[in-house]
């Protein structure tokens, strides 16, 4: 069942844009939460780790429940979005195949792509594009092809609570990814089947990309019998200082590029809203007087 159209509420659109414009070096992705008529009421930012998409599919359930409580309508994950920095807005064949996989779980699932950081050097014109699509089996062969779905950004004068929470979730996700990367560097995980090779297995580590020497690895068994954890305690202080500095540098970069501007925008929004509320209060008083005069 192809979707006729997608309504993307403007506050969810805001969250998607914030996320897409957060980095020009990598594609980011997230999920869209809404109702079966494909109204995306919220955008949920996901980790940039594309391989974990299926695991993270269940995480927005809390957001779905909260949105359902607030709106009084059943909410669920209705689509996914990702960014195409510096490249065309059209989905790649991988994107089309990924979309087809999602549609196997849910025929109404839609895909959104935001193309950003594009500039025509001659005319100094920047562009941000977005498109909506689904996948359909090609007539010939087993490949999939894209079908276009109309998408409309529906005005929403105020930013919903769930969208605001999604927006401030991004720095947390980035920090978590950085911590995971730092911890991953200091651990090397192998499956027990690989360790079953015994000493031979250990010696074979010499030929891996990591180029570890057997004598520098200390082994210990974790509580989980199916995995074995190797601790790289061999790094010299200079390397540890280097890695710590990389972590510090990356976190500083996140704070200055994401958290700082986010905080600035939030503070400006508070000021703007104060002004709007004052104007609305005056308007309300004026209208009450007018209504009283009419009566």
């Amino acid at each position, binding site marked *: 069942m192809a979707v006729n*159209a997608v309504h993307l509420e403007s506050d969810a659109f805001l969250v998607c844009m914030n996320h897409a414009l957060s980095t020009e070096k990598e594609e980011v992705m997230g999920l869209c939460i809404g109702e079966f008529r494909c109204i995306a009421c919220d955008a949920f930012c996901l980790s940039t780790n594309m391989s974990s998409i299926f695991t993270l599919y269940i995480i927005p359930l809390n957001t779905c429940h909260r949105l359902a409580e607030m709106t009084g309508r059943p909410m669920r994950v209705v689509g996914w979005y990702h960014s195409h920095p510096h490249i065309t807005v059209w989905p790649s064949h991988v994107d089309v195949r990924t979309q087809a996989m999602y549609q196997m779980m849910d025929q109404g699932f839609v895909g959104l792509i935001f193309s950003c950081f594009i500039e025509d*050097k001659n005319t100094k014109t920047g562009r941000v594009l977005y498109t909506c699509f689904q996948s359909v089996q090609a007539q010939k062969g087993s490949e999939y092809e894209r079908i276009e779905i109309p998408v409309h950004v529906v005005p929403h004068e*105020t930013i919903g609570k769930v969208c605001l929470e999604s927006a401030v979730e991004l720095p947390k996700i980035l920090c978590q990814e950085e911590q995971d990367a730092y911890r991953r560097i200091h651990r090397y995980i192998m499956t027990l089947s690989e360790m079953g090779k015994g000493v031979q297995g250990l010696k074979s580590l010499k030929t891996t990309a990591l180029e570890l020497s057997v004598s520098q690895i200390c082994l210990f068994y974790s509580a989980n019998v199916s995995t074995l954890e190797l601790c*790289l305690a061999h790094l010299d202080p200079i*390397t540890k200082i280097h890695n710590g500095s990389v972590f*510090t540098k990356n976190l500083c970069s996140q704070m200055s590029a994401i958290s700082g501007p986010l905080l600035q925008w939030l503070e400006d929004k508070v000021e703007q809203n104060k002004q709007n509320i004052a104007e*609305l209060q005056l308007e309300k008083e004026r*209208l009450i007087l007018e209504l009283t005069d009419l009566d």
Partner: protein
Amino acid sequence: MAASISGYTFSSLCYHSANSNSDHEGFLLGEVRQEETFSISDSQISSTEFLQVLEIHNHEPCSQLFSFYDYAGKVNEENLKRILKERRKNVIGWYRFRRNTQEQMSFREQIIHKQLTHILGVPDLVFLLFSFISTANNSTHALEYVLFRPNRKYNQRVSLTIPNLGNTSQQEYKVSSVPNTSWNYAMVIKEQGAEFFDKDGVMKDIRTIFQVYNALQDKVQAVCGEVEQSERLKETFQEEVNKLKKQIALRKSEKEEERRLSQVPEEHKNTYLAYNSRVVCPGNAAEEYSLENQDTSETPPPYSEVIPLDSTADSQETSTAYLPRPQAVGSSNYAPPSLGAAKFSGNGDGSSTDSSQGTSGNDDEDSSEYENLANEPSESSDSEFSQLAEGRPASLRPDGDSRNSQASRI
């Protein structure tokens, strides 16, 4: 000159523009500073250049068009002062969002710009122009933006960058140390390097920066809570204002009805009442009728009232597939004026001017005024954007090819 705008400010601009049923404009707040750059070349030992850097920190959206100028483009200083208040000193430019227009300043915008330059006392005031275009089936949309420096004779267009995280990959981490058998090296780095680590062997800087990050995130959460509260309060006030406006409109129409009844002779009253009951439809139609006849300074009804969210699935499928887009020229889904455009712009002709100042009817060169007239045949085919002028982007075709008639596109 280099210019930058944060992703959050840019997204906020897009958000306000998306919420607007017509053109949208506002002011850009920020600062201009000079950066000194050094370069070394074969001909010179050192070469110093001064680069002007314009940073857009925030924007001040105008609630409606013509809020600080009139149809002739004359700027009203009092209104300008009222809109900007103490932010006036931070103004570095202004912006305009239009749909389906050329990436050039209109004549009125040029006139306004000259006056703003003089009134605000900013010699190099900039103008940021947004143009929004869509494919005929509304599946793909493009927002184009150009930053102008109209007060300069040359190099009037400036590149606008959006600073971002850049490379988030963690490839800079080292998984192994460089092999070194020098015992002096090992001794020195162990003794001196110990300063960097705490008693648990964790680098002190990591803990410190993490504390800074946590403190910042706590602040972000706290201010987010304030934003959320203010958004809900704004929502409440907006609903009350809308409700009052409806009540006033209803009361006015009732009074008008009473006045007409009192003027009609007794023997014709029954006929008059029967006629009016056929003209005035039940439900919201009475409000729509009164809304269309009331003072044009009233804001149009919310978008949600136009889309019948409680309608049946069948009618919903039809209406959502062909959602009226009052400003999408060339769109096959363009709605007839009686359905959508009249409600949004008040002009009844689908034009994008704000209805608060009455109908435009101007034939000036402001492309937004006559760009979006109803039933205007589009110059382009249904399957591509119109190629309006030099420097226009490539047309987007529904089959996915971004064919480019100019060499410099994507």
